[in-house]
């Protein structure tokens, strides 16, 4: 397996962003990291007992978080816009085991610019399918989104610059010297 450097998400310009899914600054979050996979994104994760449902089984809602997170960030990186989830649907096939290593891959299915449809698959790493997700996102400009998100003017300026470096023509930067694996730990 080739280990790629994780993608530098635009949110990383915000020193204290706390996204439950992808911030490295939220100790309660799952701190996902993403790499490119074809036209889509891939993340690898391993969840501990803090995310348990039945003994030894990861709570299914967390799989929804992971799918939503990777699909949303995929849209950010492809469009430079801010996506808001308008609908999401999961198909659960197999329970996800606490401490097991899994991967999630997402891609864009279609979209007209303002409403984008995506899909994601969660598998045991290089193994069988455990869940699929489909979702729809409405994308808005940062200017339209700022009424709904808590950022001050300097943060908006930094984020605007970071978002302008994403989108169809942009080469997404990566963080060097970071392992591909999410640093969610089994506790």
């Amino acid at each position, binding site marked *: 397996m080739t280990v790629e450097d994780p993608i530098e998400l635009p949110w990383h310009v915000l020193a204290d962003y706390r996204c439950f899914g992808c911030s490295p600054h939220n100790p309660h979050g799952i701190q996902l990291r993403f790499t490119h996979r074809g036209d889509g994104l891939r993340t690898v994760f391993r969840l501990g007992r803090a995310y348990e449902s039945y003994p030894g089984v990861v709570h299914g809602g967390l799989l929804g978080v992971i799918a939503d997170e990777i699909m949303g960030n995929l849209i950010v990186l492809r469009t430079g816009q801010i996506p808001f989830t308008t609908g999401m649907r999961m198909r659960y096939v*197999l329970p996800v085991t606490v401490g097991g290593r899994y991967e999630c891959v997402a891609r864009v299915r279609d979209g007209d610019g303002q409403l984008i449809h995506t899909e994601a698959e969660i598998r045991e790493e290089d193994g069988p399918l455990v869940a*699929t997700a489909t979702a729809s996102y409405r994308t808005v400009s940062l200017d339209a989104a700022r009424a709904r998100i808590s950022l001050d003017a300097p943060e908006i300026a930094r984020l605007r610059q970071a978002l302008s470096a994403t989108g169809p023509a942009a080469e997404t930067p990566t963080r060097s010297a970071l392992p591909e694996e999410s640093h969610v730990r089994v506790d």
Partner: protein
Amino acid sequence: MSVSTDELIDEITGIVAQELGLSPEAVSPDADLRTVEGADSVKVLRVIARVERARDVELEDEDVFGASTIREVAEVVQRALTETAAA
């Protein structure tokens, strides 16, 4: 784009055969999927997930768990496709 139930049966038969490691000829469209050699409820759900993805359709759980054969799954998919097209 419309698709016939027979085309869907062929497509789903291929997916079922792949999931179960059988040749498509060994899978009858009218056999109870849960009694086909090598099948279990997880593999059937995997088939459903693949069909949903291939056909860009979301099947209702009541329909999925109410379908026993490939033909019945194809009919469920056909209905869902028709409803999506009409929406």
